[in-house]
């Protein structure tokens, strides 16, 4: 019985909390631009509003345009269910191999880019071209950062990685710091945050992620926005739990899980404030300087691997 409860929490935690953290980041950024900014629960209301609006679809679009939001959203749900959020006792070793995670993310990006191309507008085309270029270059860094951790833990299963790193002695944390920097770069790129892409803008020169979802409206836009929020939370959770794995519930008792949930939310809040601060303090890079940033992420994780092995 308690297993099913824990399972439902694991399944629903990410979709439930992701708009909240989106609101937090927007609030902090507004504060930095010394304006009050919308409340942190604004994203929930946005989703609710969008779910109840009619939608307009272009006649050029094909069934891929209509089907893509569902597929992207469900891939983020599966991702959310298979990464360590608050507990590391899950023997769920079916989907939590880090290569599966990487390729599920790639599946989502693939269909998002196709949807962007489908409407045949110049913005969508350029958005997906830039998105696919960046996605192609981040894949190296993403795989290698998780690879470094899996060499440390001698297993590619995320849960056993968290278990191994939590009992790691303090002094060999240097490689993990390197990998964390690499992971942060990858996270910022995948979730379309500042140095790579401005999530809030509609200026066709700079936008990457937004350009692809310009044509969406109504419930499909809601699903896409929600999926983007889920993805942001998933990467925050990965960043938090893989590199600072303390406080994950070891066994299946109610007290432990509640405490773990509290610690998890605190860690993710910390990380999202870090992202918001970063986003307000630095400018967006020119598109053709991004590859060098992504290659540094890849090199950092390769150096970490050399240090570990």
């Amino acid at each position, binding site marked *: 019985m308690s297993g099913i409860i824990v399972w439902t929490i694991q399944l629903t935690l990410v979709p439930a909390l992701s708009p909240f953290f989106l609101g937090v980041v927007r609030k902090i950024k507004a504060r930095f631009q010394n304006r009050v900014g919308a409340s942190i629960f604004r994203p929930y209301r946005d989703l609710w509003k969008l779910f109840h609006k009619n939608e307009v679809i272009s006649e050029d679009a094909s069934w891929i345009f209509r089907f893509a939001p569902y597929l992207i959203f469900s891939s983020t749900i599966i991702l959310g269910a298979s990464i360590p959020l608050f507990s590391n006792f899950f023997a769920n070793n079916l989907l939590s191999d880090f290569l599966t995670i990487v390729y599920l993310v790639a599946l989502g990006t693939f269909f998002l880019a196709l949807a962007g191309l489908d409407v045949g*507008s110049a913005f969508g085309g350029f958005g997906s071209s830039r998105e696919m270029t960046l996605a192609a270059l981040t894949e190296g860094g993403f795989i290698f950062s998780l690879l470094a951790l899996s060499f440390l833990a001698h297993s590619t299963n995320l849960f056993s990685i968290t278990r191994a790193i939590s009992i790691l002695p303090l002094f060999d944390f240097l490689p993990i710091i390197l990998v964390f920097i690499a992971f942060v770069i990858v996270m910022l790129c995948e979730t379309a945050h500042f140095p790579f892409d401005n999530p809030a803008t509609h200026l066709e020169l700079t936008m990457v992620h937004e350009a692809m979802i310009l044509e969406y409206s109504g419930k499909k836009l809601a699903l896409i926005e929600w999926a983007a929020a889920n993805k942001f939370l998933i990467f925050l959770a990965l960043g938090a739990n893989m590199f600072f794995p303390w406080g994950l519930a070891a066994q299946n008792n109610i007290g432990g899980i509640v405490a773990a949930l509290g610690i998890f939310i605190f860690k993710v809040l910390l990380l999202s404030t870090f992202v918001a601060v970063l986003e307000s303090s630095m400018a967006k890079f020119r598109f053709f300087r991004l590859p060098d940033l992504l290659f540094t992420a890849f090199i950092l994780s390769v150096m970490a691997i050399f240090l570990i092995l």
Partner: protein
Amino acid sequence: MFNFFSAQFWFFLSLLFLAFGAVGSLIFAKKDRLANWWGNGLAILASGSGMVAAVKVLCCGEFFKYTISTTLPNLAFSFVVDKLSAFFVLIISLIALLASIYGLGYIKHFYKKYNLGVLEFFYNIFLAGMLLVVTAHNSFFFLIVWEIMSLASYFLVIFENNDKDNIKAGSLYFIMTHIGTAFIMLAFLLLYQATGSLDFDVIKENVGQIPLLIKNLVFIFALVGFGTKAGIIPFHIWLPSAHPAAPTHVSALMSGVMIKTGIYMFIRLFVEVLSGTELWWGVTILIIGIFSSLLGVLYALTEHDIKRLLAYHSIENIGIILLGLGSTLIFISLNLKTLAALSLVAALFHTLNHATFKALLFMGAGSVISQTHTRNMEEYGGLIKFMPQTAFYFLIGSLAISALPPFNGFFSEWLTFQTLFSGVEISDIFTKLIFILAAGGLAFTGGLATACFVKAFGVTFLARPRSGKVLQAKESAFSLCFSMGTLALITLVLGIFAGAVSKIILGVVHNLNVFQQVSSAFFVPGKTFVLSNGFATVSTPMIFLIFSVVLLSVYGIIKILTKKRKVKISCTWDCGTKLKPRMEITATGFARSIITIFKGVLKPSRQLEVEYQDADIRYFQKSSTVKLEIADVYKIYFYQPLQNLMIKFSDQTKNIQNGNLNVYVAYILLILLLLLLTFVF
């Protein structure tokens, strides 16, 4: 009926069918329809019985060895079909079956233009050649069948011969393959010299007496020879021009299966006969694999001819297979037999996968071309509305080739990643670096391949038609859709039951004498796939199951929640101006950002020609055209200088014949005196 006859009977039955098909189609050459049905029909029967033979060998383990001696000196037709050859016979027959079905419908548009009897004749000979290449066991007989295969495929490439550059592509292909065969002949001659026999088994027995220098020479010659056929990077220049020139179902066969014969011989020669003793062999193959995969996908990105794009992707996937093969050889030389078995399973699995999804993609491209009569992707667009089934199958093909989860590409790339990761853990620093580079290369190749196939699928099928050619396209015939459908289904089934298939392949690998008594590298409890050192597990059926359940539930919930909402169809947001096809992104536009990132490797060039209203006052431009090109590095720096050297050298030797009688008699006197001085004492 299944265990009705022995595998040997089915194998020779398929060869018989192909022989009848070839001869019959020559007889019916004049009547197109009959030649088409006869040739392809018999090819289908042949590949059917070929598959039965292969399955019987694979599962029931009935190897057979058969030798027909001939009156000619030291030539014996000796066949040995062990599990490795059966595996390749299975691939060849499977793809041949579907390609022939596809051919039945596809050839209709050749009816009045070309002589179909010749096409079917060489098609059947080509299939027979491939089947024999993977089962020949005597190097002399192997060389004969290898050349016949290249000869038949040469004629297929230049089949549509009123197009000039088909002929050029065909000649380049035939020259490169023949030079490759010359190197293979040298390798076998050196082996014959060291072991005194032409038969693979005898060579395998006394491989010990071969001195090291001869072994290394044989490795280099075989690498060059079979590499030319497999299309590895420095010798790949024939592949992007030859595969697109052939009719589609032939280029599907060539790209999916024929280049695998090179891989088969790599395995047969390096792993089994020479039992891969040298470390640097594996390292060279790994490095070639890295270059082939990375450069293959980069060149694919620059292409806007759909068939050339797919041909470059064959080079990329051959690179990935070579990564697996290279790590096998390294592990064998370091005596880590279990890891070697694992990486060989990865290489073989990717060979099977690549055969299926590459054939699917070529067939999709073929049906698009047969409807739009052009190969230039810039003139496609919006085809999903005109050819929905082909678009759907092409989508599945692109998902499979970019290794996205539910399909078979994912598992074989996952397995190749595992072998490279286990390679990273070896002690010696140099091989560790090579393995890391390989893993990094594979990661970037995966990402770039996904980007390339978004471009390919998006520009071809989505959004609005970019040219009038698309408007009269309509869904392709039943036989075309049927074969594409079955191939798509196969990629899905292979993807889901990857665990079971890899167990069969492990059986094939353990059949080789190098891995005779090796503990199995992984086990497949139930549906999951667990590496023996517990490093990683994945369960592909689970992924598919969970994915579909979640997708359906999400779709259901959203449908219920928002069933009252209305959906209005109107035009795309066009900031007020009417959206014309020119506003859509083009294939070159899509890939331009990646090309500028990798401009060091690709050396893109950009010419701008401007035409002015009035030639002397150069203010008002009438029109300006921009030509964006990628320099073909290999032709400029390697093949062209080689050819010029040959021509210059041959002009020198022509001076011997300078037409003066006195000089000719002087030659005779000189050679006479020279011989007297040197030879008599």
